[in-house]
């Protein structure tokens, strides 16, 4: 039986500088996951997040844990990222304005009410880009 083994790499740089030019903090984290022999899906794409939340994760993604990167690539209103059909509630994982991104190893069914990742905007449709990859269960 064939298996699809995947691995995931993430690196970033985050810094905060005060009004006097003093660097308050700077972090440059990175990791590469172990190979995940139980992985079923690695998916990426561009998606129009409508005024009603819509799903970006395929049903085959691992409900227990998925590496999730979402970037707002439109120019108007913020987009909410949620682990299920919860747009507009306190359960969102991110609230992104144009140009901003979010990254997390997510549990898709953390609210107990669904097993997907949704994106939505209450005002007008906005474009996002995403990369999702099954992670090893916690």
């Amino acid at each position: 039986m064939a298996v699809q083994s995947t691995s995931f790499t993430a690196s970033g740089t985050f810094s905060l500088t005060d009004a006097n030019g003093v660097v308050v903090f700077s972090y440059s984290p990175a990791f590469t996951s172990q190979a995940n022999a139980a992985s079923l899906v690695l998916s990426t794409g561009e998606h129009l997040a409508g005024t009603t939340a819509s799903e970006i994760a395929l049903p085959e993604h691992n409900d227990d844990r998925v590496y999730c990167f979402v970037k707002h690539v439109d120019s108007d209103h913020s987009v909410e990222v949620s682990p299920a059909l919860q747009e507009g509630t306190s359960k969102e994982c991110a609230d992104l304005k144009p140009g901003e991104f979010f990254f997390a190893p997510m549990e898709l069914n953390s609210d107990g009410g669904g097993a997907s990742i949704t994106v939505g905007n209450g005002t007008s449709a906005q474009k996002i880009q995403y990369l999702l990859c099954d992670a090893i269960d916690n």
Partner: protein
Amino acid sequence: MPSNYTFNASMSCSATSSTGYTQAQSGAFSLNLTQINQVESGRMEIGTSNTVVLAAPADTGIGKVVYMRNLDPVNFLEVHSVATVDTDVIAILEPGEWFFTILRDTQAVGASADTAVIDVEYFAVEIDTNA
């Protein structure tokens, strides 16, 4: 203490299968923060019950940027909004993994370790309505 800041963020990520198929994404942005009151940064211990990482933003605060990296070599932890264990989970971090998010709400952010106390590296910075 200064209350105006510039926050810079950039990251890249890629996923690869054993066939060599690879997909990658990246991003970068800056936020100008004005009259904010909470800047938390450093390392802390996360217990098995809820540990508040950032209290609910007040005054001009309307949200926060949050980063956390699991420094433990063995165990995982959960990060959650509303500071309630097993509720509104934002991220589940295995050893060495990290997450970054922006939340535009007035909820606290908390974390809880699954098995034993875990050390994490983190920052949590309040953002204002214009950011």
